[in-house]
C-alpha cells in the first residue's frame, strides 16, 4: 500500500476563489492510501515545496498528489521537489484543478465537486504508480548532413567549427547545390559563385568535414545519439586519389550529346564530366548510361588520354557504414515539371524558359556565355515577358498550393539586370500579387519599377501562342485596367514553382521523419522548434522544410547546426522512462505491435521463458527504451494484452476512469 500525501494549492485566488480548497483536503483524506493532506497558498513556491519535503520526511510518504495548475506548467517542478525529498519523481501526479476546473466554473459548489473528483482520480492513479528510472544512451560525436547545397555546407561548417566530425552526403558529383547554378543573388546583386565558392573550398579543406559526393544514403537504423547509416558511394569510374583534375578526359570524350544537368539541359556535356568549373571535388565522373565504353565496350579514349591513369572502368559501388549522433537533412529543391501547363507553350517553344534556365542563360559560364539571346535562333530579344506564379498557389492537381516565396524577388532581379545591361529591351511582368517582405526587399522591387521602368501588370497570362515568325503572342489580362492584352514577345520566362527534391520522401521514410502533403519535412513545432524534426536527433536545414531564400536558408542552417551541436555536446542522453514494456509471459510473438510502432522500437527475440514452471523457448517482443517515445499504440493493438505503457498503464488509466465515474 502506498503512503500518499495530497497537497492542494490555492494559487492565490486563482483556485481558491471557485474551489473550496479545505473541502478538497477533507475529502482527499478519505481516499485509500492517503496519509496526509494539506493546502497552501502557493504550492510551487519555495515554501510550498518545503512543505512537501517535510511531509515526505514526517509521514514517510511514497507517493505525492499535487492539486494545482496544469501538469504542463509545473509537473517538472514537483517532480524535482520529490526527487530532492528522496522520492522517485515518477511517484508524483498532478490533479489539474486550475485550467480544468477553477478557471472555467463559476459556481463554487460545482467547482469543488469537480476538484474533489479530479483529486480522487489522481490519488487512484498514484496508488498504482511504480518508481521509474530514465535510461541512458550514449552519443556518437559525429554528425551527418544529407545534401551538399548551401544549407548543407553551412550546417557542416558550423558543426565542424564547434569541433565535431561531420560527413556531407551529396548525390551529384559536386557540392554546391542550386546556389551554384544561380548567376546573381538578390537584393544585393552580388555574384552567386563568388560568395559560394569560398564556402565550398572551406568545407573541402576543413579537417573535420568529410565529403561524400556522388553518394546517397542507403539505409538508416538506430536512434538519437546513435544512428547507423549506410552510405552508397556510386562508382565514379575515376580514381579520386590519382586524378589531377586536368580535364583532358572530358575534352577528348567523343560522346558529347548528353544534356547537362548543371545547365538545365540547355547545353550538352560529355559522358565523362565535371558538372561545372568550380566543382568540388574537381574529379570527373563517368555517366555510365551514356558512355560508349560502358554501352559497347569499345572506346576507352579517356583512359588513353589520362596521364595519371585515374580512369577505372571496373570500379564498383561501395557501401560505407558509419555511426552518427545527429542527422541534418538539407536536401533542397527542384522546379516543378511543366508538362501539364500546355498554355505556356513551354514544350513547344525554345524561347519559353523557366527562371532557373534564365539564370544559366545570364551566367557567363552558361550556354550563351552570358549573352541574353533567344535559344531558338540566337537573336537578341527586344521584348521579354515574365509570368509569375506558374504552378504556385495553384490548388488544382497541376500545381502547388503554397507560395514558392522566392519568385517575386528573383523576377525583379532578372528584370532589373536585363534592363541594366540591355536598356533597349522592354520587360513586362504579369503578377498576381507582388510579395516582397524582407530586409531591403520591397525597396528592391520598387527600384525595378521606378528606376528601371519594368512594366508590372496585375493579371495572369491565359496563353502563350508561338507564331510562324518565331515570335510569341502572349494573351494576358490587366485587371486594374480591365482589359485583355495581346503582346508580342521574343522571350517568355516562367517563374516556376519549386518543390522539394524528389528523393526527400525516401529519406524521410528512412529517418521516420514526418513529411507533409507537399513533401516538405515537418517541424517539431511550427513556431518554437522550427529546425527540429519530431524525430529526435533529426534536424532540418533549408528548403526541405519549406520555401526560403538564401539568407533564410543560411540562418536556418546555422540554427540546425546549433541544435545538432547541443546534442553532440552531451556524453549521455536521458531517455523518457514512460516507455512500453512487454509482459513476456503473455506475449505470443505475433508482431502486431511492431507493425504499429512508428519508431521501430519493438524487436523480437528468442528467449527462454519460465511460464509457471514450464521452461521453453519463445519468440517475445522486446522494447528498445531508447527508441520508444511512449505513445502507447502498441498497448492497444496487442491482442494478448502483453504490452503496457509505464506511467500510463492500463490499470492506472482504468483506476482514473473508475474514480471519475464513481
Amino acid at each position, binding site marked *: 500500500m502506498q503512503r500518499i500525501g495530497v497537497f492542494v494549492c490555492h494559487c492565490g485566488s486563482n483556485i481558491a476563489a471557485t474551489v473550496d480548497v479545505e473541502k478538497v483536503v477533507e475529502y482527499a483524506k478519505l481516499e485509500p492510501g492517503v496519509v496526509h493532506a494539506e493546502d497552501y497558498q502557493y504550492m510551487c513556491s519555495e515554501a510550498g515545496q518545503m512543505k512537501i519535503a517535510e511531509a515526505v520526511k514526517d509521514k514517510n510518504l511514497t507517493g505525492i498528489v499535487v492539486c494545482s495548475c496544469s501538469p504542463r506548467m509545473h509537473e517538472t517542478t514537483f517532480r524535482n521537489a520529490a526527487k530532492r525529498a528522496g522520492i522517485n519523481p515518477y511517484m508524483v501526479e498532478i490533479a489539474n484543478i486550475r485550467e480544468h476546473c477553477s478557471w472555467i466554473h463559476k459556481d463554487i459548489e460545482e467547482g469543488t465537486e469537480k476538484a474533489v473528483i479530479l483529486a480522487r482520480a489522481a490519488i487512484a492513479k498514484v496508488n498504482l504508480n511504480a518508481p521509474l528510472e530514465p535510461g541512458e544512451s550514449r552519443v556518437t560525436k559525429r554528425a551527418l548532413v544529407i545534401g551538399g547545397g548551401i544549407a548543407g555546407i553551412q550546417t557542416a561548417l558550423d558543426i565542424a567549427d564547434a569541433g565535431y566530425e561531420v560527413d556531407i552526403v551529396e548525390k551529384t558529383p559536386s557540392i554546391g547545390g542550386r546556389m551554384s547554378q544561380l548567376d546573381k543573388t538578390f537584393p544585393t546583386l552580388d555574384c552567386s559563385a563568388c560568395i559560394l565558392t569560398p564556402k565550398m573550398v572551406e568545407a573541402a579543406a576543413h579537417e573535420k568535414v568529410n565529403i561524400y559526393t556522388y553518394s546517397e544514403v542507403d539505409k538508416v537504423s538506430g536512434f538519437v545519439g546513435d544512428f547507423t547509416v549506410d552510405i552508397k558511394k556510386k562508382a565514379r569510374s575515376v580514381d579520386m586519389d590519382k586524378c589531377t583534375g586536368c580535364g583532358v578526359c572530358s575534352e577528348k570524350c567523343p560522346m558529347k550529346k548528353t544534356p547537362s544537368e548543371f545547365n538545365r539541359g540547355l547545353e550538352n556535356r560529355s559522358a565523362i564530366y565535371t558538372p561545372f568549373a568550380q566543382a568540388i571535388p574537381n574529379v570527373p565522373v563517368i555517366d555510365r548510361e551514356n558512355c560508349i565504353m560502358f554501352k559497347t565496350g569499345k572506346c576507352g579514349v579517356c583512359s588513353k588520354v589520362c596521364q595519371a591513369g585515374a580512369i577505372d572502368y571496373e570500379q564498383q559501388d561501395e557501401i560505407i557504414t558509419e555511426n552518427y549522433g545527429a542527422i541534418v537533412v538539407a536536401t533542397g529543391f527542384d522546379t516543378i515539371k511543366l508538362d501539364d501547363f500546355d498554355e505556356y507553350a513551354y514544350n513547344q517553344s525554345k524561347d519559353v524558359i523557366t527562371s532557373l534556365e534564365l539564370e544559366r542563360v545570364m551566367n557567363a559560364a552558361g550556354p550563351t556565355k552570358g549573352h541574353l539571346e533567344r535559344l531558338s535562333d540566337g537573336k537578341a530579344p527586344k521584348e521579354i515577358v515574365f509570368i509569375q*506564379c506558374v504552378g504556385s498557389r495553384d490548388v488544382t492537381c497541376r500545381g502547388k498550393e503554397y507560395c514558392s516565396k522566392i519568385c517575386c524577388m528573383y523576377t525583379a532581379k532578372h528584370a532589373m539586370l536585363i534592363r541594366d545591361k540591355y536598356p533597349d529591351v522592354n520587360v513586362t511582368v504579369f503578377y498576381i500579387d507582388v510579395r516582397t517582405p524582407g530586409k531591403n526587399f520591397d525597396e528592391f522591387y520598387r527600384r525595378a519599377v521606378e528606376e528601371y521602368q519594368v512594366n508590372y501588370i496585375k493579371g495572369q497570362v491565359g496563353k502563350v501562342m508561338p507564331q510562324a515568325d518565331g515570335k510569341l503572342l502572349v494573351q494576358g*489580362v490587366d*485587371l486594374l485596367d480591365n482589359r*485583355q492584352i495581346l503582346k508580342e514577345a521574343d522571350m517568355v520566362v516562367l517563374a516556376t514553382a519549386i518543390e522539394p527534391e524528389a528523393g526527400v520522401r525516401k529519406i524521410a521514410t528512412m529517418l521516420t521523419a514526418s513529411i507533409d502533403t507537399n513533401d516538405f519535412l515537418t517541424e517539431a513545432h511550427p513556431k518554437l522548434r522550427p529546425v527540429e524534426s519530431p524525430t529526435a536527433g533529426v534536424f532540418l536545414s533549408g528548403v526541405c522544410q519549406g520555401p526560403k531564400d538564401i539568407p533564410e536558408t543560411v540562418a536556418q542552417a546555422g540554427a540546425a547546426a546549433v541544435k545538432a551541436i547541443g546534442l553532440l555536446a552531451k556524453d549521455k542522453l536521458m531517455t523518457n522512462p514512460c516507455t512500453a514494456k512487454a509482459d513476456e509471459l503473455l506475449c505470443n510473438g505475433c508482431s502486431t505491435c511492431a507493425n504499429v510502432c512508428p519508431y521501430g522500437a519493438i524487436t523480437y527475440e528468442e528467449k527462454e521463458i519460465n511460464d509457471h514452471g514450464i521452461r521453453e523457448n519463445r519468440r517475445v517482443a522486446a522494447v528498445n527504451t531508447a527508441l520508444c517515445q511512449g505513445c502507447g499504440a502498441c498497448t492497444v493493438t496487442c491482442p494478448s494484452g502483453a504490452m503496457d505503457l509505464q506511467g500510463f498503464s492500463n490499470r492506472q488509466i482504468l483506476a482514473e476512469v473508475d474514480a471519475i465515474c464513481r
Partner: protein
Amino acid sequence: MQEQVKTISGVNPYKCMKCGKCSASCPSFNEMDIKPHQFVSYVLNDDLEALLNSESIKQCLTCFACVERCPRDVKPGNLIDTVRQMVVRKRGAELLSPEEVTQLLDPELPQQLLVSAFRRYRR
C-alpha cells in the same frame, strides 16, 4: 439568390484569389460587359440583377478555358452558365425536356458544355 447560384454551380466564390487567369484565357473577353473574373465578385457582392441582364451570358462560348486553367478551382464558367440557367428558369421555359437531354448526350463531351450549348442554340 447568392445561395442559389452557389448551389446550382457548385462554386465557392471565396476561393478566388483574383489572379485574372479566367479573363486572360477568355476568347470572348472583348465582347463581354462583365468580364469573367468580375463574375466572381458580382456573386460575392450579391449583385445578381446585373449579371442576369448582362451581355456576357450571351457572349460566353462555354469553351471552359477559364474552368480548365483556374488555379484555385473556382470555375467562373460554371457561374456564367448558372446565371444563364437562372434566366431560362425565370422565363419559365424549359427549352429542353430532361428526356431529350439524355438522348442527346455524347459520352465524349463534357455534360455541362452540351447542356449549355443546346440551351443557347434552341433559343
